């Protein structure tokens, strides 16, 4: 897992230099990470993708109001003062939450060179939101390109683009889908009539419909066994907490019959937690934060010259950025 970028200058790799607080991936750091694998592996290899603790501390100190009671604002750091990217983003998230919602601008950055195509983000999203069969918020598109021997593979996670000018919003006949104060396109499950006009309007295929399917409905029943319909089926009937409201599939009500989509895990963000796809990304390829904070990691990333957005020519102004 040698990172090619460690062999070239940051500028050449399309990343900011050390002074701009980019995750510093060096061979030394990598080796130290391997040595300290016992602890680091458990919490995500702080060393390998660490950032300067001073910068995080400064970020923390810059936030006058305390963070939500549920989360500490001190950065977790390792012995040599390196702080994991996740920690930095978490601290920045807590700082952003102190601002009025309208002053925040959540964006997601996907570094395609770091994505290894493990699909952990897809799965963690499904687990987090208890998604039923046929509903997916964040598939990872796999592509192979080139001609032998010069071939390559690219993995492109595709969450909802949270467009600033979302085509899916004006077509909704009941205003059930709209852009919230924080710029995230959300769905009011109780207002959605399930016409799927928003699915047609989305140029990214980022919305899916919930047709009421369940994983275990055709499974044989076996009492007290984890594989049986009665027992295993209970898991998918547990409520999910999208938009901060518990909803169970047991009663057949919404979100069954609704359009569904990625919402940047707003229910987690509200509690000071990063979206599930961000925390589960083993390569730290998924970054999240407030782009209105000029010192945030995502603000730095989206200013890089190698940043791009999908179907930019449509003018939808996505809030999901890719680094190539």
């Amino acid at each position, binding site marked *: 897992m040698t990172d090619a970028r460690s062999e070239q200058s940051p500028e050449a790799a399309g990343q900011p230099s050390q002074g701009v607080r980019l995750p510093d991936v060096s061979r030394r750091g990598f080796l130290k990470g391997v040595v300290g694998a016992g602890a680091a592996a458990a919490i995500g290899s702080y060393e390998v993708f660490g950032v300067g603790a001073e910068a995080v501390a400064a970020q923390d100190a810059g936030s006058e109001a305390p963070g939500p009671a549920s989360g500490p604002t001190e950065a977790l750091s390792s012995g040599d003062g390196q702080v994991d990217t996740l920690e930095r983003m978490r601290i920045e998230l807590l700082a952003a939450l102190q601002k009025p919602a309208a002053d925040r601008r959540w964006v997601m950055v996907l570094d395609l060179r770091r994505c290894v195509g493990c699909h952990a983000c897809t799965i963690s999203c499904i687990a987090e939101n208890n998604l039923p*069969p046929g509903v997916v918020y964040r598939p990872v*598109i*796999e592509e192979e390109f080139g001609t032998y021997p010069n071939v390559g593979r690219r993995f492109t996670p595709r969450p909802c683009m949270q467009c600033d000018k979302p085509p899916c919003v004006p077509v909704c*006949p009941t205003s059930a889908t709209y852009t919230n104060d924080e710029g995230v396109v959300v769905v009011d499950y109780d207002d959605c*009539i399930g*016409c799927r006009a928003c699915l047609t309007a989305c140029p990214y295929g980022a919305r899916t419909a919930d047709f009421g399917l369940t994983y275990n409905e055709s499974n044989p029943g076996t009492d007290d066994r984890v594989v049986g319909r009665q027992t295993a089926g209970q898991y998918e009937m547990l409520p999910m907490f999208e938009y901060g409201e518990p909803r169970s599939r047991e009663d057949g009500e919404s979100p069954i*019959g609704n359009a569904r989509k990625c919402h940047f895990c707003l229910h987690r963000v509200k509690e000071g937690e990063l979206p599930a796809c961000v925390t589960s990304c083993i390569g730290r390829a998924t970054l999240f934060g407030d782009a209105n904070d000029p010192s945030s990691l995502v603000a730095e990333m989206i200013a890089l010259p190698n940043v791009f957005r999908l179907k930019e020519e449509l003018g939808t102004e996505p809030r999901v950025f890719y680094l190539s």
Partner: protein
Amino acid sequence: MTENITRHVDIRRILYALAIIAIVLGIFGFASRLIVGERDVNYGSYVNWGLWVAMYLFFAGLAAGSFMVASLDYLFKVDLFKGTGRYALWATIVTLPAALVLIGLDLGHWDRIWKVYLQPNVSSLLAQLVWSYTIFWVVAMIALVLAIRKSDLWLRVVMVIGLVLSLFVSGGVGALLGVNAGQTSFHTAMLPAQFPLLNLASGVAIMTVIVGFFSVVEPERRTRLLRVLGLSLVVLLTVKAYFLWVDYSQVLYSSVPDAVAVADTILFGQYSWAFWGLQVLLGLIVPWVLFIWPGTAQRPILAGVAGILVLVGLAVGRTAIIFPQLSVPDLEGLAEAFTHVRLTFEYTPSLVEWSVLIGVLGLSALAYLIGVDRLPLFKSRSEAAA
């Protein structure tokens, strides 16, 4: 004349029987949709609109087109069409609910349709259409009542309003698709321009079927009427052929990959048999040839069958607008990124979808037949059919 009347009685019986059989076949689909929801349908999240949406477009077009034809009698007072307005108006009244039932069953939450009335997003074309269809249907009902009461002046006023609405809903459906900039073949100003004409073709075709199968006017006028309706369809089918040509030739010449992919799917892909076999051959060329031939007007049943072929062609045309575009992935590789039966770009309507469509067709036909037999508006039918 006796032979004529006997033949019409026979046709009516056959149509009643077919309508009832269709309703019986539809019970399975209705039951499935109402009991288990959308579990047994084949549309999904990528091909998210299927047979029901396509047929909603068709039936709504039929309703609008029938109203346009009714205006020839009730508004423009064209002598040749005298006495036919009621048949066309009744066609509007029974086909529009068919369209709305189909689109209603397609909704994930049809129980919330009231929200479109009470909390509409006025910028949404879908909301505008729901409102417009509702008003249009009410206007058609008022026109029916005024026609029964022979209130000529008010009927003309209402017909003007209805005619404007019929054009609006026709163009509106085209715009409903056309506003989707991400869907290359939808996103064209051609659709709102084409739909009113295609809907007029539907209205003329259903009128041809009605005149061909039933004695709605005197025999001598009937031949002339069928000739005029037939030639109108020749013109409209020629226009439709031109539309098809410009639609596909422009796309193919442009060589824009996404757009070409849609055209390829229609012309040479999984739906090509429906395009060439049903839409072009059966729905366009055969009726075009039949209506050009003067002898068809003297054979009412043949003219009626040709009218049905035109309707089949128009219905298949609606499916050719909906499915193929949605069968092209928004992003390359999306189809394989996360696989599930509802996340595929291939679509074939399920048994439930066909069953519901057949049932709706049966209900609509039965309502039409009962109306023609029972409504006071049609009491003078036997006089007209002398």
